[in-house]
């Protein structure tokens, strides 16, 4: 199955040594490994419909793959390209945009989504880029920050809002190629070196009307769906990280001896490992459920209506699980846990960037609370 294929391929191209080599490269990944994925594995086409040249598999398979990428700390433009770029096109692209760009992605072009400004939020209010009509097309001014692989992606989906608009109103989406006049992109070096972020500055960037995705000024519901799909996808990475941290830790504590016993025989250590398993398995349950819902949402199925809640539930517990497990992994490794030489710290850093990206647990719990508790919410709990 995809899980096993992915595991064995990634074990080869994303060994600890490969990760350490890739993460200090300027582009942040091993170009050769990415090429092999595009050519041999064709993972970038996994859930793109066959009509656009893709493999036409579902979100559940994509999630299984992403879980392995998290497990192996894979450095690549895969997440940005597939879970941001391709999803944005699938959800909000016009037929002509899909026909133009999706086959390019299938052919190996990279992509991403830029929507957050500098205010640190992840909801509709985070959009700060300003769009105005211009010569039948539009002009963009302002900036986006914290954009995954934003400095290298070849296809950009960008969210902007009309001047004076707030929150969910006035939001539009655009798709543009990297070589667009007025656009400056710069790498933002990060604590987690296995991923790349960028800032995009738009200085009177002019776009033709064919760059406009879906209904101008009313794109928020579709953008929210794109973000929710991306959220489920990042949880897969978290679950993989959380699981691998557990596995590495169990293996370490079963060989490390102190006081004449393997430290894994101490109940304090055993129970921490048990807690790590509970975290990993419960996050996995939430993830698998959300993956099924996401698959439904992509085909506009009835169960897809639960996407926002399922994504928030998964992200809240995925973030907790991943941070807890990677942090506990350092603790149970003792002194070697905070050396650069051991791998657990790389997982710990990736956990923090996954936690922050698209909103932490508190953000997602509050999002769920709004659905449960605020004006208009029924007494019904949706299960």
């Amino acid at each position, binding site marked *: 199955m995809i899980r096993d294929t992915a595991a064995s391929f990634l074990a080869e191209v994303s060994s600890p040594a490969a990760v350490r080599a890739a993460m200090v490269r300027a582009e942040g990944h091993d170009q050769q490994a990415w090429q092999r994925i595009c050519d041999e594995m064709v993972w970038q086409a996994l859930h793109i419909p066959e009509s656009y040249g893709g493999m036409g598999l579902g979100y559940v398979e994509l999630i299984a793959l992403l879980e392995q990428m998290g497990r192996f700390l894979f450095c690549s433009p895969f997440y940005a390209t597939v879970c941001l770029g391709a999803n944005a096109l699938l959800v909000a692209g016009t037929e002509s945009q899909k026909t133009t760009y999706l086959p390019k992605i299938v052919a190996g072009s990279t992509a991403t989504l830029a929507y957050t400004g500098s205010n640190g939020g992840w909801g509709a209010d985070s959009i700060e880029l300003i769009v105005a009509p211009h010569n039948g097309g539009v002009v963009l001014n302002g900036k986006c920050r914290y954009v995954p692989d934003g400095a290298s992606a070849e296809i950009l989906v960008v969210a902007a809002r009309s001047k004076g608009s707030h929150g969910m109103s006035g939001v539009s989406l655009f798709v543009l190629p990297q070589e667009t006049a007025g656009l400056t992109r710069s790498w933002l070096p990060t604590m987690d070196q296995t991923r790349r972020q960028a800032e995009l500055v738009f200085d009177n960037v002019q776009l033709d009307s064919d760059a406009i995705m879906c209904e101008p000024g009313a794109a928020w519901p579709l953008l929210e769906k794109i973000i929710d799909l991306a959220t489920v996808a990042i949880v897969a990475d978290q679950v993989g990280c959380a699981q691998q941290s557990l596995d590495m830790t*169990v293996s370490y504590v079963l060989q490390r001896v102190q006081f004449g016993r393997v430290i894994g*025989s101490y*109940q304090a250590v055993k129970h921490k490992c048990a807690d790590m398993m509970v975290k990993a398995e419960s996050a996995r349950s939430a993830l698998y*459920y959300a993956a099924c819902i996401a698959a439904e949402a992509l085909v506009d199925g009835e169960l897809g209506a639960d996407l926002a809640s399922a994504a928030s539930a998964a992200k809240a517990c995925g973030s907790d699980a991943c941070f807890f497990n990677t942090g506990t992994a350092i603790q149970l490794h003792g002194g070697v846990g905070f050396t650069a030489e051991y791998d657990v710290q790389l997982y710990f850093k990736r956990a923090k960037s996954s936690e922050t990206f698209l909103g932490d647990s508190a953000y997602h719990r509050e999002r*769920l609370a709004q659905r449960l508790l605020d004006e208009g919410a029924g007494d019904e709990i949706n299960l």
Partner: protein
Amino acid sequence: MKLTFSDEAEAFRQKIASWLAENLGGEFAELRGRGGPGDEHSLVSERKAWEARLHAGGWTGIGWPKNEGGQGASLEQQVIFHEEYARAGGPGRMGHIGETLVGPTLIAFGSEAQKRRFLPGILQGLVFWCQGYSEPNAGSDLANVKTRATFHAERNEWTLSGQKVWTSLAHESQYCFVLARTDPTSVGHKGLGFFLVNLQQAGVVVRPIEQLTGTCEFNEVFFDEAVCADADRVGAVDGGWQVAMGLLGFERGASTLGQQMLFKNELADIIRHAKRNGAARDPMLRQRIADAEIGLRIMRANSLRMLSGSSDGSLQKEAMIYKLYWATWHRNLGKLAMDVLGAESEIVEQAPYGLSRLQAMYLFSRADTIYGGTNQIQRNIIAERALGMPREPRG
């Protein structure tokens, strides 16, 4: 992981739902939502009558094989039954122990005679059972059972002496299945027998244990030369441990979705209170309410994983975390309920100590992380069986 059920299963759902709608009224209306954990002592005779009604409707032993008098329902159907039963507010089942533990055990390990003798009473909702495992010094360490069974060849029967504890509803049951030491020189899980003991005899005294809620759900059961025919012994004379462990394995997750429905009702109740008293606007309580809902979602997804998993009976990882997860979640829910109620949470419904439903849940939920294997024992099990870590040494 499947999120939906087959059309056939949904038709089954319709059937049980409408039967419950029809029958859980009239004389039985007062039973809705009663008799669950923390409330097991309530409305006992009415709930016994309800068991007979369930039997009349063909809803007892639904998971048992047809040739043993059951309905031979699929796992999917059993799940649906439990879900609809809980959704309708079906009362805590007096027949629970008999149907889910004794029946399957006899079907697997019992003689034909034993099955003929005991299964019908269980199915008909007429004979009620309780569980005689734990003892004062055999809690987490169940294999430390000290109750002694002595064989009297001349009468072909056993006498049992000792004390069991934490026996739910013993005072309302006719029979108890008892794990007792047949070999007085044995230690641990060897030399134990499994006995079906009639409680209505001189050698048995049942003493209720009052809990922190002021109610009595558990009992101590004292055996003083209590008699049990050799024919009422299940399995080998020294094979009781195998029977007992087999029995614990019969509970395989079909009822977890039903349990979650009860939890969901409690959370909905808490949300209603929060909306009414303004707690729903408190940012910290919002987080905790959302977290509770996330936990419910996780439990449901976890059960769906369990149910779509391997059918070879081996425990999967998601099954191994379930007890620890739900018990901790429910205990936290109790605290959340009180914090949502705020100052009013202290005030009981009726003087002198008539607790509200949520107060009783709050207090009783402290037991959730203890009975059926404490959280500490659960973590041992997970570490040792799922993660392959070394076992705790015996002293």
